[in-house]
């Protein structure tokens, strides 16, 4: 379980995350949704220790992230941000191999090779394994990064808007993949999402942020309601039950 206790972050006078306390349950997919500027990405970055918080603590399975050493946390929690520009010219296999760094410190073992090959296969990247990242399309590159995160084999995997730059087919397969990773390997996946319908169809748990505060949290059925969504986003919503999935329509 990830316990977030009273964390806050401000830039100058603007408060981005305001005293948020929440518990992200172990297992399944937890989505963080909310309007632009609600502090979703900032919250995720603080949980993943990419950004220092002004106040509060985050515990990952009882380990305080501010006091636990980087190597220990890197075996429990991983994060993938949206824009992963890099200067080094790497092949997909090289990139995925970095996922094993917390375990091997740069000295790959045969087991690491198995992990790498599994991750490549899981994302259907075998044929691109020896290609350089800058030769791939945006979607393929995104998948390569996800493969690296899978290869890191942590209990908690955090993704900041993993569906950005993906077309519908790849977005759906990405969410299915995350759901399968959660089911097959018992991982806990936390994703920041913009698309309410993806959150509704794939999440086990939804956290809603608004104005830097934790606005609501609960099962998709409790969150995906017209009144609630109108409250969150400030525009009219309709919600339809289509074959068991709650689909919201908000195109006016």
């Amino acid at each position, binding site marked *: 379980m990830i316990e977030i206790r009273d964390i806050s972050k401000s830039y100058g006078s603007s408060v981005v995350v305001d005293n948020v306390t929440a518990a992200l349950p172990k297992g399944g997919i937890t989505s963080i949704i909310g309007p632009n500027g609600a502090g979703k990405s900032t919250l995720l970055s603080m949980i993943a220790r990419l950004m220092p918080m002004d106040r509060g603590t985050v515990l990952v399975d009882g380990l305080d992230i501010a006091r636990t050493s980087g*190597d220990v946390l890197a075996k429990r929690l991983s994060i993938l941000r949206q824009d992963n520009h890099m*200067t080094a010219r790497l092949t997909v296999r*090289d990139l995925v191999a970095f996922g094993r760094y917390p375990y091997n410190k740069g000295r790959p073992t045969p087991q690491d090779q198995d992990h790498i090959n599994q991750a490549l296969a899981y994302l259907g990247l075998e044929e691109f394994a020896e290609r350089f990242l800058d030769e791939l399309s945006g979607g393929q590159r995104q998948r390569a990064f996800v493969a690296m995160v899978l290869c890191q084999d942590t209990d908690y995997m955090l993704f900041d808007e993993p569906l950005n730059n993906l077309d519908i087919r790849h977005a759906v397969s990405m969410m299915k993949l995350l759901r399968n990773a959660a089911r097959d390997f018992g991982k806990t996946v936390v994703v920041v999402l913009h698309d309410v319908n993806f959150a509704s169809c794939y999440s086990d748990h939804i956290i809603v942020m608004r104005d830097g505060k934790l606005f609501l949290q609960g099962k998709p059925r409790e969150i995906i309601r017209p009144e609630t969504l109108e409250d969150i986003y400030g525009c009219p919503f309709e919600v339809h039950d289509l074959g068991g999935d709650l689909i919201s329509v908000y195109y006016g």
Partner: protein
Amino acid sequence: MQREASRSSGTVLLVIGVIAVASMVAFMTLGARGSWSFILPFRGVKLFSLVLVAYAIAVSTVLFQTITNNRILTPSIMGFDWLYMLLQTILVFTLGAATTSAIEPRLLFVIEVAAMTGFSLVLYRFLFSGSVRELHLLILIGVVFGTLFRSLAGLLQRLIDPNEFVVLQDRLFASFNTVDSNLLVISTVLIGLTSVAAFKIFHTLDVMALGRETAVSLGVDHRRITMIVLALVTVLVSISTALVGPVTFFGLLVANLAYILMPTAKHRHVLPAAVLVAIICLVGGQTILERLFAFDTALSIVIEFAGGLFFILYLLRGAHR
């Protein structure tokens, strides 16, 4: 495929290694008139210092580019060399030439390197801790820093007593042709120490090159490694500046040539390649200019010219993305 990549890295390293050795042999033997017992030690010292400088500049630039995660910034572009020159000037200015000359030069050098490391950590730490992301802003800050340090040094040099200025100028007037060979032993020791320290964090360097966020996610203590590398870079820059004076674009040139030559971005391939390319440029260039064209002082100009062109091309091509 992976094996192929490392094999071809090996081939490239072998080829540039041979060229580097050839240029060193040429430097030692070409146009030798007179007794070998004089020529060999005379040229040997010069060769050794050129190799030291090549090593210091190449390694410092590649490491610096790794922690700043781009391929355009170099310590010299960020004004490190001029900071060293400024510190030297301040030293002579405050202590006086007599006192400075009285101190054992090697001890003085160590003190200068230590002061330089402290200053640069204070000055540059915040720039590379991830708070400034805009590359052009960083370059601008570097240029402003460089100009500031240079102007401050110039101001102090004008205020200084003329006799002391002569002493100072003597200390600052290093070039590829008149390497300050007093400092060779201590420079070698310092370079050895920094290399050992670099070797200890060697495995994190490839991860650092992935960028701060990925590195942190993979469990690297990014702040700590950045500080260590910055300190190592400062020591190496101090050494090369003390030996041959500031060279702005040489590091940029050799580091980027190494990235282009090597098929992988792994540090265990790129670092040796950069050192070898630097040796070829410095030693080979010096040999060609001295022996073939009988020019005496132009190497730094030629290198700076080529490096400067490369810098502009690189900026225009937008390769920093």
